[in-house]
């Protein structure tokens, strides 16, 4: 296939009217969290770009990210976007298996400039033997595939930051894609991190739509996450925020406060330090998000969230039990008592050495 069709051509081929296309662009703008005024720009851009090839690599993962994506109710904007890309390799979704599947990947890699999507972390300990596909280690496969890629999108917290496989004690030496680039183990390419456990389907497709529409990496934060989805913390966008400010907190999951929908901070909500779009984009087709269902945010789109102490411990509370405290108190008491004996000894020896001064002494 020499000339991939433009996305507008693709949609026209499906018999979609300009009016429908306009609606699609408006919905896409909303999906990408762009101002609604951007819809014409999207329409124009979609008229120009070609259907790109996408290779999706799944490493140490639970398929939750793919599940999230495929659970987006079809047909939706998301599914239309998937019509726009040519998903050439995805070992869960593709029909081919074994040799044929790997062959599809090798074929897709022949034309540089494809997009690589990764879910799952990559084990690098002991030569990467802890996870292999078709006898190729994950690290080797990623290295080969990234070589000619235009960009890499890390889908899910595992691919972005290492996630659960990297959690203490990290037996497989798991790492995220960005970390491997930083260590020089794979070629350096532009990376978009789309963390979450799993990420919101609309966010996955929104980021892809942005890349496809504008052919460029969206503005990213310091952790490589698109600002239009990860720019705000859950806390700042949370509809329960007014309760936090008023000091109204649920203390247990079944008290008065919990029933009245008060703030879940004291029940361990990690909303203040978590950046994601859950509070606005929501889950299950805009139904709700965890806090709306009465459970605090667990911070799944942040690095090391698994090692950040209990999900049910308030952010301001200690992450681990204070194991040194009792020992330190005893040691402090021991030192204090020791010092007081020393001081007493000093005092009594001073008393013993005391001589009554006489007039003679003063004349000396």
């Amino acid at each position: 296939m020499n000339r991939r069709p433009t996305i507008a051509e693709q949609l026209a081929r499906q018999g979609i009217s300009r009016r429908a296309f306009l609606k699609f662009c408006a919905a896409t703008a909303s999906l990408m969290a762009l101002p609604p005024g951007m819809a014409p720009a999207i329409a124009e851009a979609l008229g120009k770009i070609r259907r790109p090839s996408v290779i999706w690599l799944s490493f140490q993962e639970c398929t939750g990210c793919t599940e999230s994506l495929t659970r987006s109710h079809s047909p939706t904007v998301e599914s239309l976007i998937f019509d726009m890309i040519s998903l050439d390799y995805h070992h869960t979704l593709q029909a081919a298996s074994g040799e044929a599947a790997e062959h599809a990947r090798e074929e897709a890699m022949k034309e540089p400039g494809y997009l690589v999507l990764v879910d799952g972390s990559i084990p690098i300990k002991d030569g990467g033997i802890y996870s292999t596909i078709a006898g190729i280690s994950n690290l080797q496969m990623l290295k080969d595939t990234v070589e000619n890629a235009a960009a890499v999108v890390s889908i899910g917290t595992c691919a972005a930051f290492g996630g659960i496989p990297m959690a203490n004690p990290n037996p497989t030496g798991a790492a995220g894609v960005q970390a491997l680039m930083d260590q020089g183990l794979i070629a350096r390419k532009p990376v978009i991190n789309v963390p979450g456990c799993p990420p919101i389907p609309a966010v996955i497709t929104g980021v892809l739509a942005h890349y496809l529409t504008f052919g460029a990496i969206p503005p990213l934060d310091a952790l490589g996450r698109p600002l239009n989805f990860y720019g705000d913390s859950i806390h700042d966008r949370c509809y329960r925020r007014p309760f936090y400010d008023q000091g109204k907190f649920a203390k247990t999951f079944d008290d008065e406060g919990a029933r009245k929908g008060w703030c879940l901070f004291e029940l361990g909500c990690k909303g203040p330090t978590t950046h994601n779009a859950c509070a606005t984009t929501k889950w299950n087709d805009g139904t709700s998000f965890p806090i709306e269902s009465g459970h605090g945010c667990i911070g799944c789109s942040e690095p090391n969230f698994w090692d950040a102490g209990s999900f049910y411990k308030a952010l301001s509370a200690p992450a681990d039990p204070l194991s040194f405290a009792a020992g330190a108190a005893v040691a402090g008491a021991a030192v204090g008592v020791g010092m007081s004996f020393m001081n007493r000894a000093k005092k009594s020896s001073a008393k013993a050495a005391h001589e009554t001064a006489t007039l003679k002494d003063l004349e000396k």
Partner: protein
Amino acid sequence: MNEMELLNWVRGPGLNIAVAVFLLGTIWRLFEIYSLGRKQDLSAPRNAAGASGWHTVVRRSMPPPGMLKRSPVSYISGYAFHIGLAIVVFLFAPHIVLIENLIGLSWPALPSQVVDLAAVVTMAAMVLVLVDRINKPVKQFLSTFEDYFTWAVTFLPVLTGYLAVQHLLLPYTTMLALHILSVEILLVVLPFTKLFHVFTLFASRWYNGNANAHKGVPV
């Protein structure tokens, strides 16, 4: 180390170390100070109205006549920042959660806007006392490195806490980590500097008052 790792460290091992040093230092010094004792005063006690340890504890909390006018910054700002600190430290909801986790006690919190205001007043008062310390030749002469150092370790937790809540300067996660870190520095430093007055203030007042009462002097 990214900001999340820093936050995890300060919430975990960092806090563990800081609380341990704080407890060790505090208990050590309390034992040492209170076991010192004093030589018995063999003179006959002279009684005077209003002269006792307890009187002094109360009286030293008020400015002596005329002093409020002569040194308004010391008294007004001094009071303002001490009360402000108490409000910020003990009546902000996340702090109460921390205390509850540590010792199991909890009480109602103030709305965060009130705590914000208290934090601003505290910082303003602390800056005033610092400026006063630098501007007044006598105060400056009496000041040592420790005075400036303890001012800084007290001021930083309030500043970083306020910046974190208001989302200023740095991302919240980073600022929160720095805030907790600054409190940990305060905890480590407290038992070994003049900040130990949080534990000894009233006892030393009582002691002075009692010694002077023996001599018949209400101070």
